[in-house]
């Protein structure tokens, strides 16, 4: 078996008394794409928000169990460091409208007060935008605000912004659900390319997307992890009846 860079042990998440993630134990293998899949409301978004400690920002939210990043207890670390090592891309593209494209890419540094030399900042901006396959489209107006970009371009800008922090893991929470098919295809291509250098956790309810690009699939239902395994195996010989019914479209 490959090595897990990130793993959860009996992870449960609550909103008040409402338990929305139920005792999930799951590994994420290094430089692989793991898909967290399931119908709406199955707790998959909440689950990945526990991985980078975003869940606890919601008032009344609570977590039980353990998350380990390279065998280090994530909940014993400084949350701002956790979030820098585990980057995140959201459902709706959310570049900062008050910042230029350039500043958006290095927003992580600007926000946290890390001073970069001009040459260093230039390098990070170019590398990150190239990694996010956006460089050629925006290189001529880096100092304009990013609000005029298309939805797909904005989402790739957000990916560049996350990559600029050189995270070990990248969480993507339904990153293509607000995009058209062409933009979706570009992001999928991009994720496959990125998985050569960074571990990717992708939340989706799009079965076809999961089968196209992921190496591992975790199927969630009603807050429980129903099934986990290599994508090929899960999609061809699902072990649980619920997984099978979801895959053939009986619900969700």
């Amino acid at each position, binding site marked *: 078996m490959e090595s897990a860079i990130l793993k959860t042990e009996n992870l449960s998440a609550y909103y008040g008394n409402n338990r929305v993630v139920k005792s999930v134990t799951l590994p994420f293998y290094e430089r692989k794409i793991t898909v967290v899949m399931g119908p709406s409301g199955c707790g998959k978004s909440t689950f990945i928000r526990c991985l980078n400690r975003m869940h606890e920002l919601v008032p009344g939210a609570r977590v039980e169990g353990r998350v380990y990043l390279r065998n280090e207890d994530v909940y014993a670390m400084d949350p701002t460091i956790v979030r*820098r090592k585990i980057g995140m891309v*959201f459902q709706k593209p959310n570049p900062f*409208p*008050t910042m230029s494209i350039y500043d958006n890419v290095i*927003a992580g540094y600007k926000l*946290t007060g890390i001073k970069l030399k001009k040459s260093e900042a230039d390098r990070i901006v170019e590398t990150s935008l190239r990694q996010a396959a956006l460089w050629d489209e925006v290189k001529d107006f880096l100092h304009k605000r990013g609000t005029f970009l298309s939805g797909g371009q904005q989402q790739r800008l957000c990916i560049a*912004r996350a990559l600029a922090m050189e995270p070990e893991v990248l969480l993507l929470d339904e990153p293509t659900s607000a995009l058209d098919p062409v933009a979706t295809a570009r992001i999928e291509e991009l994720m496959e390319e990125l998985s050569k250098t960074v571990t990717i956790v992708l939340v989706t309810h799009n079965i076809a997307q999961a089968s196209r690009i992921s190496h591992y699939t975790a199927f969630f239902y009603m807050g429980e992890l129903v099934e986990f395994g290599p994508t090929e195996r899960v999609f061809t010989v699902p072990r649980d009846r619920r997984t099978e019914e979801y895959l053939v479209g009986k619900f969700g």
Partner: protein
Amino acid sequence: MGRKSPFKITLLLAAAGVTVVALATMLSLLWGSTPALKAFGWKFFFQKEWNPAMDRFGALPFLIGTLLTSFLALLLSLPLSLSISLLLGEYLKGGKLSSFIRSMVDLIAAVPSVIYGFWGLEVLVPAVREMEMKMDIVPYGVGIFTASLILSVMIIPNTASLAREVIQLVPRDLKEAAYSLGATRYEVIKKVVVPYARSGIIAGILLSLGRALGETMAVTMVIGNSSEIPKSLFSPANTMASVIANEFTEATGDLYYSSLIAVGLLLFVITTLFGILGRYVIKKTSIEGGK
């Protein structure tokens, strides 16, 4: 569209009526101040002598008095009103304590200004006088500083409530984006929330400024009513509004009367100018309007 229903005509009449009132105000101010402007020319607005006994009038002392009290009040109240708006907009979003603080802030706006003036006379003036004695300057008690103090309390709600509203409107996904990059709560507020809410905060400040420029009663009661150009922040002075309120009933000569109306015209123009400037700044700093 073309059909004139009675309802639409009623709406049009209401709009026309308001327009007429606004224009008529402007015109009658101009009309009323003509004698003074004829006698002194445009220099009236920059002349520093205001001497009813000699029939010599100039508005400069009041222009200075108004701008000084208003901006000093703004400076004093800004840290308070911004803190309140951040607390209510970002930290204490719901709950009993939040709504209690909110209604207390609204209450500040609801207190009639003559009550503030009274409180100023009874409490603030003696306190400032004491302070002035310790500082070894002439202990008037009344003056620019005292008026600014009162104003600074009165204008808190304007900035605070508007700024709170725009701070609450900052999209959650932007704040989450900042958190996900490793920002602390303070960094999120400083670099995401405040820049995003900037135009609304400026709008609130300008609203406060408008209130401060025109505030009459409370200021008149504690400013000391001196028509000389203030020598320091502790000097007695007059604002445009306070000189009108104070001297209108005793303005005997035609020129005196007309000069007071001309001061009113100046106040009107300045308030309007700040209003226009405000709109321009808001447009420039708003997210959609920027380049």
